[in-house]
């Protein structure tokens, strides 16, 4: 997984879409910004495209930073690409069961309501510097990259996803009401 198209990036540096993009860029991912309102501009030195179809290279993963009602259309666009991406990732707060079902029907892997920056932080333990429960255990040293970055690795015991049982239960109850 090397190239990630981030759909719905904001050019404003106080928006989560901007700094999730930056964090993943700094960790070596080939980040591709997508936002029709910013097409033709650069964000963090990367040219912005209006639509997924405009990207002139293959994309491994599409990260959807849009409200849930737009997720289905983004998945439809993603499925029209050649080659197809392997993963549809919907950001923290974004859940669309319809979009997920469509992507899975076509053999894509789907993640919903998670942030790849947070998940990278869990699997590198960088997020633990903020007191966050990574829900991982490891007796191995974290690998260091230049710039003081701890590289993500899977040499750890990982407890079924980043959310705790209680927080997952609370969210399900919230969705019901």
């Amino acid at each position, binding site marked *: 997984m090397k190239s990630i198209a981030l759909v719905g990036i904001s050019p404003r*540096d*106080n928006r*989560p879409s*901007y*700094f999730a993009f*930056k*964090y993943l860029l*700094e960790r070596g991912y080939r980040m591709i910004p997508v936002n029709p309102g910013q097409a033709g501009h650069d964000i963090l030195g990367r040219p912005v495209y209006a639509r997924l179809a405009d990207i002139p290279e293959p994309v491994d993963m599409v990260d959807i930073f849009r409200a849930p009602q737009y997720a289905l259309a983004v998945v439809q666009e993603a499925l029209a690409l050649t080659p197809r991406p392997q993963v549809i990732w919907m950001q*923290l*707060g974004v859940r669309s069961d319809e979009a997920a079902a469509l992507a899975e029907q076509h053999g894509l892997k789907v993640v919903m309501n998670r*942030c790849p920056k*947070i998940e990278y*932080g869990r699997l590198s*333990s*960088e*997020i*633990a*510097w*903020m*007191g*966050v*429960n*990574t*829900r991982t*255990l*490891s*007796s*191995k*040293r*974290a*690998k*260091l990259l230049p*710039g*003081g970055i*701890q590289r993500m690795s*899977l*040499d750890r*015991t*990982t*407890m*079924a996803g980043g*959310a*705790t*049982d*209680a*927080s997952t*239960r*609370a*969210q399900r109850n*919230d969705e019901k009401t």
Partner: protein
Amino acid sequence: MTDRTPDRTPGFSTLAIHAGAQPDPTTGARATPIYQTTSFVFEDVDHAASLFALQTFGNIYTRIGNPTNAVLEERVAALEGGTAGLAVASGHAAQVIVMHCLMQPGEEFVASKKLYGGSINQFNHAFKNFGWNVVWADPDDVTSFERAITPKTKAIFIESIANPGGVITDIEAIGKIAKSAHVPLIVDNTLATPYLCRPIEYGADIVVHSLTKFLGGHGNSIGGLIVDAGTFNWSREKRYPMLSEPRPEYQGIVLHETFGNFAFAIACRVLALRDIGPALSPFNAFLILTGIETLPLRIQRHCENALAVAHWLVNHSAVAWVSYPGLPVDRYYGLARKYVPKGAGSVFTFGLKGGYDAGVKLVSNVTLFSHLANIGDTRSLIIHPASTTHRQLTDAQKTQAGAGPDVVRLSIGLEDKDDIIADLEQGLTA
């Protein structure tokens, strides 16, 4: 790369030793190093800007975060089943930090009237100076919590096991009241520790600790900790602007939107700890972490010793009553079976038939018990509240606070139980 993700949660004892602690990435040190430093160098100007704007993870300054403290934070969050933690200078500091993130001047919170006396003081006096108004409710009548809620209520605060009287609070019933009022339930879990009770499983949204007591466990370090359960929807009614509104301190960032289910712990760190300042020393964090590694073993022995002492006291001719929820005759025994089935802790009170003078005599006569104002030590501790912590109150006030003239509080340690009992025996008969 193979995905070696076992879909299972390690047990409590494994978490107590390993959660949060990896070998040091630079030196390979296996024990958690004490990062005794005020500050951390930036990679470059851009890295510094990203850190200050909360856009990347990392260390800036020990008042805001420190790698030793971070291990402690993740450790306790993991043991409680929370999403994140924040370590601070004391249990009292934890309570100020939590309330700062929830309350505006003129608002209210409902608290159990059976709490640690220090918390009662803090709520009645210091918090009122901030305009945070406590409304007291009775944990023995959970409907009193419902009746105490008004449109100004922002939180409910209880203890799982209340100090000093061995009161077990019905967390689940009060959690339901908090949920229907759409306010977070805060549980002080100091006396139970997560080994005996995990309040998040019964509806707590925030857990606070005095680490000074059983978690540290050796009577050597003051500390406090806040655990975010990740269960409260801060954006639902926008009543918690620290979490749901753009923050001018951080260029308009919205913490709940940005950090999701650990936003409350982040708010406590970057809005409250940063600006109010009660940071924990990394050296204290190190000592407390070492204590937590043996928490399951210690609590088992604390409970076993306490139950033996309580049984012995019940049958002693100088003793009028014993308030220990581990005894089948105790009024809280039923709640104890539900909330703390592995043991009812090791802090409890008993009454002396000889009243005030007998209490003074006992604390003077004991030679193994230490006469002091702390609990949750390896050592057995004793205090006669009427002649010490509560001496400024009238007799009526003392009795209402559970500190009547005849009351003695014990914190049973890890010595041999025969020696603990022998010391009480000689203290009562000398």
